[in-house]
């Protein structure tokens, strides 16, 4: 039964769409409602573009309205000015123009993150009347632009034909955006929203991905503009106001920004609200603002969130059949196989922040099949060293070598792509994602499935997706947390999160692992699993660098230990040697009387 419902989801959706498409021709809805449906379809395109940017990449783009104007005027002008009235030409030209505007505003606007893009795009909306004035010969200025009747293959498109076109374009867009967002790409967008740092550890260029998402979000806005120009036959500056921008934003948060179909729900509420509650016109801005406040503070998942919660509750109570469990995959013994570990070497590495020398002349070498531990008191430079290796800081001096490649100063995502992965003191875990999907994002850069492949759900997509899922499940089983695979990853306890991070790190088959305080806050049983995992990576030939406070744990795991104090290496050696070193003991026990200490030479790199 459950399986039946699942299998027939697509036919049911198609049937409903067909019904909607046929409704006016079959006399099911009158002209007023047909127009309402078209306006909702157009508004939902605008909202959907914003959802992709805001809900998935975490950037606020207020400029949907400006892109809407671009689409409307470009489609209007090529019809009237150039005589190109074919709808495909109009839609294509609108999309091209939107991509151009998206690039011009996104390239500078996304350099910094935070409010820059919001302000650039807000500025764009405020400029719309100005620009319409400046380009008066093309836009008709304040008087507006009467558009030509659109044609399809030479036949004029009006009435029901236009209705079909608008609803079909919206349906196709939503199918494509669904395919994009419910794929590994959508998962990585979610990671990007939660933590750009984590995204770069996955080997993703944060800037380029945000730009890509922003430009994708511009496309439906331009389509909506072109469709609007065809629907009204007239384009004038009064349409493209900041109030419209706010209503798009409000519709996005009402429907739920991080969802595919929330855009339709939000657009529906907003459009019907505007049509029926005209006497609240004066309070319109206050109401929009109230929605934004409410959505930002209390119910930030919108109607889509309520729907999912409702479905989940109904399933728990047995009112609805359970969702079919994801097919079991990858039977057999879980093994790590061999890892292609690489030598990581620092040579006289330096890092200073202003006048503060956080690291001075640190030379260490970490080899494949070994665990190299960094210990030292707080502020001794351990995490600084990890951040240098993973590319979050640029070295102030010295060299950082991965095999024979100098990696010092390269951006984090490039270093990640060369096979350096890491975990974090506080695990970085995204929201709205299952554990399995999160672990699979570890393979995003190394086992890439193209965007076009995902959009069209080509066989290569299915193969790649299955392989990702199987590998994620295998790794989770390897770490003994297979049962978490279908749970939301942000619902897991700290100890499990650390193991999930290890699985995510392993998914990329990396050459060098950096573990940052991996043991802190773990109980005994979690610690044992973790020790086992580190042991496995070593056996498989991976290079492991461990930063850890727990001295007994380090003694147990490490092959070589480097001791940092105040940014300098004060000792290096095997666990036995370090245990016998009195200077290290002094650092750890706080004995400061120099008479107690032998003038021990740091055994730098000696072995």
């Amino acid at each position: 039964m459950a399986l039946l419902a699942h299998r027939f989801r697509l036919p049911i959706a198609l049937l409903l769409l067909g019904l909607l498409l046929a409704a006016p021709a079959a006399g099911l809805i009158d002209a007023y409602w047909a127009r309402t449906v078209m306006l909702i379809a157009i508004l939902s395109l605008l909202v959907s573009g914003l959802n992709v940017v805001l809900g998935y990449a975490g950037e606020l783009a207020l400029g949907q309205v400006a892109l809407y104007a671009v689409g409307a005027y470009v489609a209007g002008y090529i019809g009237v000015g150039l005589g190109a009235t074919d709808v495909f030409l109009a839609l294509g030209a609108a999309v091209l123009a939107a991509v151009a505007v998206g690039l011009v505003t996104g390239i500078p606007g996304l350099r910094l993150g935070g409010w820059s893009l919001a302000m650039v795009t807000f500025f764009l909306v405020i400029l719309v009347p100005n620009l319409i004035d400046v380009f008066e010969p093309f836009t008709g200025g304040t008087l507006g632009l009467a558009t030509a009747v659109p044609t399809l293959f030479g036949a004029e498109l009006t009435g029901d034909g236009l209705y079909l076109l608008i609803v079909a374009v919206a349906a196709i867009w939503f199918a494509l955006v669904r395919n994009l967002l419910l794929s590994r790409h959508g998962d990585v967008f979610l990671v990007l929203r939660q933590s750009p740092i984590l995204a770069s550890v996955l080997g993703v260029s944060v800037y380029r991905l945000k730009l890509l998402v922003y430009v994708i979000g511009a496309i439906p806005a331009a389509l909506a503009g072109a469709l609007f120009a065809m629907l009204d036959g007239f384009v004038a500056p009064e349409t493209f106001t900041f109030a419209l921008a706010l209503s798009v934003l409000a519709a996005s948060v009402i429907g739920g920004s991080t969802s595919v179909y929330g855009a339709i729900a939000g657009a529906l509420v907003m459009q019907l609200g505007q049509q029926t509650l005209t006497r609240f016109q004066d309070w319109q801005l206050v109401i929009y603002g109230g929605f934004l406040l409410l959505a930002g503070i209390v119910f930030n998942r919108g109607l889509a969130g309520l729907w999912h919660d409702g479905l989940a509750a109904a399933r728990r109570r047995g009112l609805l059949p359970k969702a079919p469990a994801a097919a079991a995959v990858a039977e057999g013994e879980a093994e790590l196989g061999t890892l292609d570990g690489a030598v990581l070497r620092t040579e006289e590495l330096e890092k200073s922040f202003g006048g503060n020398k956080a690291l001075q002349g640190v030379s260490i070498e970490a080899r494949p099949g070994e665990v190299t531990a960094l210990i030292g008191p707080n502020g001794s430079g351990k995490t600084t060293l990890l951040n240098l290796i993973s590319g979050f800081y640029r070295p102030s001096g010295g060299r950082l070598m991965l095999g024979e490649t100098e990696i010092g100063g390269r951006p984090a995502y490039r270093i990640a792509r060369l096979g350096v992965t890491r975990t974090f003191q506080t695990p970085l875990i995204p929201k709205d994602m299952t554990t399995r999907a999160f672990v699979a994002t570890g393979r995003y850069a190394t086992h890439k499935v193209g965007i076009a492949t995902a959009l069209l759900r080509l066989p290569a997509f299915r193969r790649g997706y299955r392989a990702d899922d199987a590998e994620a499940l295998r790794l989770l089983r390897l770490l003994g947390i297979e049962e978490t695979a279908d749970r939301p990853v942000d619902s897991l306890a700290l100890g499990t999160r650390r193991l999930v991070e290890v699985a995510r790190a392993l998914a990329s088959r990396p050459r060098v692992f950096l573990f940052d305080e991996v043991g802190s806050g773990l109980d005994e049983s979690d610690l044992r699993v973790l020790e086992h995992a580190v042991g496995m990576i070593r056996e498989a030939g991976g290079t492991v660098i461990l930063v850890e406070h727990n001295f007994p744990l380090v003694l147990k795991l490490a092959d070589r230990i480097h001791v940092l104090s105040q940014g300098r290496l004060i000792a290096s050696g095997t666990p036995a040697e370090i245990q016998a070193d009195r200077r290290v003991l002094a650092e750890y026990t706080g004995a400061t009387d120099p008479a107690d200490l032998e003038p021990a030479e740091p055994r730098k790199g000696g072995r």
Partner: protein
Amino acid sequence: MTTVWAGLATGAIYSLVAIGYNVVLLASGTFNFAHAQLLMAGTFLAYTGAVTLGLPVLPTLLLGAAGVAVVALLEERIAIRPLLGRSDAHGALITTVGAATILDGLAAVIWGREPLTVPSVLPDEPLTLLGGTVRPVDLALIALTLLTGVGLHLWSRHSLLGLASLASAEDREAAAARGINVRLLGTGAFVLAGAIAGVFGLLVGARTYAVFDLGHSLALFGFVAIAIGGSGSQLGGLIGGFATGLVYAFAARYIGAEFPQIVVFGVFLLILFLRPRGLFGAALERRV
């Protein structure tokens, strides 16, 4: 030179917005998108005080300062405080835009959508200064803005409270561990920013009129000022605001009335592209 004076006077308003952004940013790490709306509210309160109630200058200033400070306090309580301690930083993007929209809407409901003329408190005869003419009220706006900006800059660098605010913007938890009351500091910053915006309502309104959507362009140009000056730098914001005003005035004078906004937008994009941290901002490194 008259164009320079006009540019400086407009620029002073942008500097004021930038100063307000920075006061809150430096103390709580939040970018308060709605600050320009606080300035808008200040111009309306100045109108209410000076015209509707017919108050003299000093009570009008007090009314503005107290009124806008209360609005800012409410905004902090409703739109910012509930978000503190959340893991994702995007909440404030939405809630401060929401707060700004509510303020726009309320102003339109209370005072209407038509611009209101805020009377100038100083004589209206233009002065001739350094080869250009300038209204005394604009001169006062420029001078007081400079004074406020420089004063806040010195205060944040040399007073204990200012340093505490810098520390808590840098790292809330570390600052709290040192005994700094970061919540009170954040609230205080909103109130201070609101009071400053309220006091200037009279001078700003005399130049711009009081109008409900004043906040939009002020927010943008104030942000351009921050982009030029580097966020968190009071002096940078001050200079950035004046620079933006000058660019605006010269573009309007020499290119054409439709162009100043477009030119400022171009400058904005260029700065973001070439010096994303601003002309005076230092490069920060990310921390894990």
